[in-house]
């Protein structure tokens, strides 16, 4: 098999705070192949954003501390890059899109300047050319009347349009990988559909890989090729999207699938919740973090932490019990 575009091995990120050390990401390993869409799902606080930010070393150290056995991207060892090397990579080979575009856009600069700036900086385009390219990019993300819109400021745009601008900026340098962290969570469902369809079309067209962070299992089903399920800072199950939805094997994934109402099922089913409460990362039990809520726990779960092990073609889970169905 060809080397994956991104390969992460043994990534752990912790934060030191008043309450002690929180292991937000704990020994996470995954691959992203060129051109594919990988979803990271999990509940609030499970470590999805910190995983992505750690890959790009966007975690402030201190209070954060990132450790990894290996992070390789496009044949390069990211661990060997210094701060400026990583910075050159961001916005060039890897672009990031956040949930709230307002926080990543400069309110004092026109949209045109902001889209053109990376073209000028990373690709060395002279400004007139960069602005012309910015117009083309805004057209590509379906912003009406892009010539005129170059002179607008971010606050003059709606939430959906700002997210389109973010996508235009992400695409500007023709990255090999885009990391989108809850890119549509703040948007209405019809606008969410527009933005995600756009992202899909444009990444397919250019062969760009996408890491899509979301808690929406519907969005994952519609867009992801592969899925990583996180719980309490660890990956508990990974695999092709159809495998994860049709034959989930980790009790948490099985529980998630049973707990959501779906538009395609018979009316009147009783939902099956996952009992208990989300874990407190600063007071995790020894053994498997899911054990207090797990209907399938065995004796070993209380003592030893299960590692992510292969259980089928490209399918992994971290669980002591051999759950089926």
């Amino acid at each position, binding site marked *: 098999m060809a080397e994956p575009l991104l390969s992460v091995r043994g990534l752990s990120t912790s934060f030191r705070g008043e309450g002690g050390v929180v292991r937000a990401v704990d020994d996470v390993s995954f691959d992203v192949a060129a051109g594919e869409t990988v979803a990271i799902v999990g*509940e*609030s606080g499970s470590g999805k954003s910190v995983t992505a930010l750690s890959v790009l070393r966007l975690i402030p150290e201190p209070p954060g501390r990132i450790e990894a056995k290996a992070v390789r991207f496009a044949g390069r060892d990211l661990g060997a890059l210094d701060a400026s090397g990583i910075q050159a990579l961001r916005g060039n080979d890897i672009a990031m899109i956040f949930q709230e575009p307002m926080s990543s856009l400069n309110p004092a600069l026109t949209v045109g300047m902001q889209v053109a700036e990376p073209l000028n900086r990373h690709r060395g385009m002279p400004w007139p050319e960069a602005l012309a390219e910015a117009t083309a990019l805004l057209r590509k993300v379906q912003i009406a009347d892009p010539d005129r819109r170059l002179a607008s400021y971010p606050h003059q745009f*709606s939430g*959906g*349009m700002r997210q389109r601008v973010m996508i235009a900026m992400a695409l500007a340098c023709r990255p090999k990988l885009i990391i989108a962290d809850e890119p549509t969570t703040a948007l*209405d*469902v*019809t*606008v*969410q*559909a*527009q933005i995600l*369809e756009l992202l899909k079309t444009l990444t397919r067209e250019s062969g760009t890989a996408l890491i899509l962070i979301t*808690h*929406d*299992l*519907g*969005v*994952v*089903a*519609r*867009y*992801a090729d592969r899925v990583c399920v996180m719980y309490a800072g660890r990956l508990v199950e990974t695999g092709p*999207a*159809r495998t994860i*939805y*049709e034959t989930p094997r980790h009790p948490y994934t099985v*529980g*998630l*699938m049973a*707990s*959501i*109402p*779906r*538009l*395609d099922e018979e*009316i009147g*089913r*009783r*939902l*099956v*919740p*996952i*009992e208990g*409460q*989300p874990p407190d990362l600063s007071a995790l039990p020894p053994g498997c973090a899911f054990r207090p809520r797990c209907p399938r726990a065995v004796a070993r779960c209380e003592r030893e932490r299960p590692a992510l092990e292969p259980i089928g073609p490209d399918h992994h889970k971290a669980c002591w019990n051999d759950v089926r169905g």
Partner: protein
Amino acid sequence: MSAAETLLEVEDLRVHFPVLRGIVFHRPVGTIKAVDGVGFRLARGKTLGLVGESGCGKSTTGLAVLRMLTPSGGAIRFEGRDITQADADTLRPLRRRMQMVYQDPYGSLNPRMTVADIVGEPLAVHDIGTPAERRAATAELIALVGLKPDMADRYPHEFSGGQRQRIGIARALALRPSLIVCDEPVSALDVSIQAQIVNLFEDLQTRLGLSYLFIAHDLAVVRHISERVAVMYLGRIVETADRRDLYKAPLHPYTQALLAAVPIPSPALEAQRAHPVVAGEVPSPMNPPRGCHFHPRCPHAKPVCSETAPALRDLGQGRAVACHLHGD
């Protein structure tokens, strides 16, 4: 319509807010028609889901129904009485029968009060029972929503989102209401916790005969919990129907667009499904489009759609739609 007793009836409800400008002297420069012609009926013991995108007027409708604000027009009948313009004295006894559960339980719980105080406060305010009776009633409420007795003396910050929502629900139940307006009660919760709270709402309805006006933007949750559904767009109801009809065969182009936009958690189904996207975004309620509010985004718009606002037309079998395509 079925013979079920109507608990709440809303007719042509309007809530308009003045838009004020100026730093010292506020002068009105326009009107936001947040709710502009909303009608529905909620039967006793049943659930009506109210869906629509951000800013379409769902919360404002809920607040008007509870008379936490005064409507600009239309009629609200609750338990057979017209409360549209009722004054504070008339409303006081009725307030006990209508309660609200909010999206953000944290923001609505006093951080300095214990759970028992929060849940029992409505009883104390309305001077119901002796202190001992109130303590007993509070303990019962805490058990009813699935919290443990030893949680009564703790404070809201010690609880997770789902548990805080249980506290909010216990408090809403204290005065034995017949109607609960639930404004996005599960949207801030993790999916694994949403199911716990949805099941709790269902159990409480069965046990206590409650009626819910269930406001949400998650169409799958609404389909699960509501017998009837009303779809709003920019201040107006565009379609109402029994859930089976609405989800199987939506009639209004906006309802169709909304349902097409919701991804189904099945990669196999999604791979076969077409993903038509409706263009544009919801316009500002300050300056809504003429005619049918949806016409600039509607793939089926006809000339009349930009001229005249379609009335909500009763099609029989409990269905009503406001669309020129479904006229005479």
